């Protein structure tokens, strides 16, 4: 067992020796500004660990491929526990090695993937150990909020309301906000996941729907109809200090926050068809966000790096699209709806399929590759990736 502790320190000799040259940090990017995948070769792992590791790395922009193409080598084993090493293939250096005393091999693989990503893509939050919340439907009108690893594994039910739930939204990583019809009308609850305690934070007459928590987890944006039309409101997380931001006769929906918490992007049908608008979180006039190429836009989600707004376009079916946060030309990525950004602003979770038989999928934005995740109950939708 002592060998394990020693292994974690094996990396120390690597840092000494070579004098780092003064080369500016350059990352190769594609035409949309996403970092090009770093080619690696993974060997020595088997079964679930091999699959989990490669998928984690892929959605973080580190792509397993042929040995000849690889710039880095990832080697290790998963006999009993995950043990992994990272080598710079070009300079023939051992960069990192560690054994993981995780509860499961799967957890060990995720932890190793995050360690590799922190080394190869510094400054970008790793995602292998992140969680998501989503709505799982057991039949028409019966749904509960579930939480799972970002890849759909280890799903756990968070609610047992026996009614309809909708639109889970994270506040930090241990608290959720969502709509539940448990009391009859749609009411917004806050829910501490570790204690299970819940509070109805918006229970006004009419609709209390579409909660969205500011990135610093201090404010709640939502849609209320108490004044006679579905409009955008903000409040403190406990529902106090309520302020109405829009005053239209039409319906507003799906607010999301800019990463700096200053602005809210939402959907309004003010001009007939649903379109994206941006308004200051403290109120004022809204401006329409141009989504050239997507005439009907709903379900916006602002990327954590601030560059993009992902949304659902509707032309016949649904398409997952991104548009620069300042508006402009739309990039269509895949068939599906309700995108939610990963903390790394590179991957998206979304759902696809027919109503009441939807499933969640992961999308690598630069390559547009899609991977379905495990389904819970009959239908899964409204994923929310914990940031």
């Amino acid at each position, binding site marked *: 067992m002592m060998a394990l502790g020693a292994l974690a320190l094996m990396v120390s000799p690597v840092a000494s020796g070579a004098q780092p040259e003064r080369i500016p940090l350059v990352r190769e990017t594609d035409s949309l500004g996403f970092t090009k995948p770093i080619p690696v070769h993974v060997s020595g792992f088997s079964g679930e660990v091999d699959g989990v590791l490669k998928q984690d790395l892929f959605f973080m922009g580190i792509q397993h491929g042929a040995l000849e193409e690889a710039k880095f080598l990832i080697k290790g084993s998963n006999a009993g526990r995950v043990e992994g090493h990272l080598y710079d293939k070009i300079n023939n250096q051992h960069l990192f090695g560690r054994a993981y005393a995780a509860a499961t091999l799967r957890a060990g693989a995720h*932890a190793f993937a995050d360690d590799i990503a922190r080394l190869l893509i510094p400054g970008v939050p790793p995602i292998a150990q992140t969680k998501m919340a989503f709505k799982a439907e057991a039949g028409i009108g019966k749904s509960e909020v579930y939480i799972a690893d970002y890849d759909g594994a280890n799903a756990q039910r968070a609610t047992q309301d026996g009614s309809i739930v909708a639109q889970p939204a994270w506040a930090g990583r241990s608290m959720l906000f969502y709509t539940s019809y448990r009391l009859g009308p749609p009411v917004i609850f806050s829910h501490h996941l570790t204690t299970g305690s819940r509070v109805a934070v918006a229970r006004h007459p009419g*609709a209390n729907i579409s909660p969205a928590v500011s990135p610093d987890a201090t404010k709640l944006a939502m849609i209320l109809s108490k004044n*006679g039309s579905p409009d955008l409101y903000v409040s403190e997380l406990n529902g106090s200090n309520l302020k109405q931001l829009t005053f239209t006769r039409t319906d507003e929906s799906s607010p999301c926050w800019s990463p700096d918490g200053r602005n809210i992007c939402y959907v309004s049908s003010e001009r007939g068809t649903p379109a994206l608008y941006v308004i200051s979180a403290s109120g004022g006039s809204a401006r329409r966000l141009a989504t050239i190429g997507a005439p009907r836009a709903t379900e916006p989600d602002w990327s954590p790096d601030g560059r993009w707004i992902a949304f659902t376009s509707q032309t016949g079916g*649904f398409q997952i699209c991104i548009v620069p946060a300042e508006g402009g030309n739309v990039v269509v990525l895949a068939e599906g709806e309700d995108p939610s950004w990963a903390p790394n602003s590179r991957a998206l979770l979304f759902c696809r399929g027919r109503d009441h038989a939807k499933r969640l999928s992961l999308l690598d934005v630069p390559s547009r590759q899609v991977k379905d995740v495990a389904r819970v109950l009959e239908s899964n939708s409204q994923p929310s990736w914990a940031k």
Partner: protein
Amino acid sequence: MKRTYSLVVLLAVGMMLALGGTGCKKKLQNTTPLPGYRAGEVPASETPSPIIPANPGRDTAARLPPPDLGTATPVTPINPDTTGTGGIPLGNTDRSTWNEDHDTFKAEVIYFDFDKSNVRPDQVGKIKAVAERFRTMAAKALRIDGHCDERGTEEYNRALGERRALAVREALIKEGIAADLIDTRTYGEERPAEPGHNEAAWSKNRRGEFILLSPPK
């Protein structure tokens, strides 16, 4: 590019060692920690079901606070001809415990056009009929449930369903029904009346339904 990568990695490894190396040595003799958790803490993934309350059914119900409508707007006299922005505010009476009668106005379902929330001229007759009968009922209230077909996105439809229910409510107010007696609820696309995936089904699913409410005995 290879020099760039090497530099990045060297710097990152160096930083990791500087920040975390000594801590690891002191605290952990037999195991290597999972990043993200402090030594001694139980990682969330190791506890069997930390996010589900032990007895979610009753426990959670007991924790739900009593109806708090204190922050809602006070009831003010309504002018049915209000044409300004917004709409006619909803009343503050909490009728969540009232009895629901889904049958009395079963025949008067109001249908809508795709993606629209205005009451079609051919639907107005049903609203007049409901208003006429409701006027004769003492101590009752009405709720309008707004529904959508499956073609919009989920939260968009949830807002649209509410907008439809509110449009029917305004039409009832125009017929002279007191605003405070009419509640709305949206189900979005959650409860289709017809299960099909074609216009025949969709046209039946874009609807407003009248629920007659009676105070609990």
